[in-house]
């Protein structure tokens, strides 16, 4: 179901976490809420889930105004950064929790087989088959988070909300789970919002990104739109590396590095060459004292025989323009 936020404001004491925020998350989309810590992205997610009450503004899920409804009546699945596992329950009971609490004791007994089948189906979906009788403490971080996901999906939520779901995991598991989440979304098409502070994660996972800063929404768009047409200097700096020069901002891969001697290029001193596999990052010092970074392919770098202390030519091009500054 689509999610609509209308002019939501939320303060904690003197601190404004959300300042007149309005967003539309389309039905069935996978959207990322991206922003630095303290930008209000987690608060916005909790407002959607009903875990925080907005001071003003409305929240709609589907056609319904859910602003005054408690979390348990909103039909959302929520996944926490630190799993929030029920440690005293087995994996099976964790996943079955949302199915059990909605039924009377008698209905639970009557529908035991159905519940068990649903739990098995979900554990297969998150690839935890065979671990039904384990306790959360006996799972790895990645497995725990997959269990939390299965638990959130069990009652068939109309929206799935994930709060920095991979933040506590190491890089490799994080990349794996990210991949897997995207494929899962292709399969089940539930409207999903992922909160993250990692622009790469947001771009990798989401079709739509909402960039937040200081309790406000800076920009909404596809990863490509954000990268190619950032609405502001701040967004440009947040969604990718930039060179901040006197006349404006430039991406490192837009800086052209040439052999010294071309007439229209500026002179620059190579300070450092960093080999990052396919890419090579070069740190340069311009004649007027400004420093900048350029990004080259391996072949380009080899052809130029870049080494610290060498003089090269650079072409900067014109700085990025913003739709609003």
């Amino acid at each position, binding site marked *: 179901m689509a999610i609509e936020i209308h002019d939501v404001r939320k303060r904690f004491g003197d601190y404004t976490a959300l300042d007149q925020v309005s967003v539309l998350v389309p039905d069935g989309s996978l959207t990322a809420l991206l922003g630095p810590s303290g930008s209000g992205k987690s608060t916005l997610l909790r407002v959607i889930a009903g*875990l925080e009450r907005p001071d003003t503004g409305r929240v709609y899920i589907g056609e319904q105004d859910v602003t005054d409804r408690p*979390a348990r009546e909103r039909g959302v699945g929520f996944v926490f950064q630190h799993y929030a596992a029920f440690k005293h329950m087995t994996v099976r009971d964790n996943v079955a*929790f949302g199915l059990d609490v909605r039924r009377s004791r008698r209905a639970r007994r009557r529908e035991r087989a159905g519940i068990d089948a649903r739990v098995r189906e979900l554990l297969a979906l998150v690839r935890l088959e065979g671990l039904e009788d384990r306790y959360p403490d006996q799972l790895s971080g990645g497995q725990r988070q997959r269990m939390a996901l299965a638990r959130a999906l069990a009652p068939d939520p109309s929206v799935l909300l994930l709060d920095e779901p991979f933040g506590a995991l190491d890089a490799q598991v994080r990349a794996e789970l990210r991949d897997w989440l995207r494929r899962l979304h292709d399969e089940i098409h539930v409207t999903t919002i992922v909160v993250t502070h990692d622009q790469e994660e947001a771009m990798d996972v989401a079709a739509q990104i909402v960039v937040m800063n200081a309790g406000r929404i800076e920009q909404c768009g596809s990863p490509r739109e954000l990268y190619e047409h950032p609405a502001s200097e701040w967004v440009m700096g947040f969604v990718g590396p930039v060179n901040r020069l006197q006349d404006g901002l430039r991406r490192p891969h837009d800086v052209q590095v040439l052999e010294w001697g071309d007439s229209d290029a500026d002179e620059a001193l190579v300070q450092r060459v960093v080999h990052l596999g396919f890419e090579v990052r070069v740190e340069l010092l311009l004649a007027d004292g400004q420093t900048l970074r350029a990004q080259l392919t391996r072949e380009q770098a080899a052809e130029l025989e870049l080494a610290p202390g060498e003089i090269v030519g650079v072409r900067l091009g014109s700085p990025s323009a913003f739709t609003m500054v």
Partner: protein
Amino acid sequence: MSEGLLPRPARLGARSVALAYLGVLLLAPVGMIFYRTFEHGVSPVWNALTSQPAVHALLLTLELIAIAVPLNTVFGVLAAMWIVRGRSRGRWLVGLLIDLPFALSPVVVGLALLLVYGDNGWFGNTLTGEGVQVAFAVPGMVLATCFVSLPYVTRECVPALREIGTEPEEAAATLGASRWQTFWRVTLPALRWAVVYGVVLTTARSLGEFGAVSIISGDIEGKTQSLPLYVQDRYANFDTVGAYSASMLLAALALATLLLMSRFTRHRSTTMTTG
């Protein structure tokens, strides 16, 4: 555990000091009581323990525990929930009040209760008029026992609740659980070892309470004499066999409580690693 922080001689030295300290403080006096109790064989002990006032004292102590421990357990868990999860401003005051029995001498507690419920106390006369005798009777002893053993369950549960955090409860809410279901199925099970530990400490404290109970009860033999009061009474009357025997019984009950606790905590540490 084979490799300690200290080199071997230092480790042995540290252990000897610790054991000697325990020995002087604990083992010697307890061992001495044991020796003195059974100095003249088992039959005088048996006779002392089966005497009418001794049996009455034991039953009364068990009765006090049976009332005070469940009351303080329920209250303690609720108070901990209030202190940690509540939103009202007076929470710090609740925490402070609950710690009061730690700070107050039990004798003061007994006197205070007497001032309120005694014959010339605030509602002593009113209650007596209604046919309820609090001071110098079992209700007063229950009050005193509840008061001195009040903080233990709360103090165990407060840090446990903080450690669990609000996220499992929030997860339960998003999964459709009511507050009541969340409490019974998520919060309380997560708290269970803290509650068990608190109950054991409450029981141990209630078992041994002397000062407050001594004052409010009036210490009437066969009526308001709990086991610790009985020990003191026998001792004051130069009935050493009676005093030592009852002490042994008290020590045995305390030991049983502690063994029960260590059984539970061992269980806890194994569930932490293997589930």
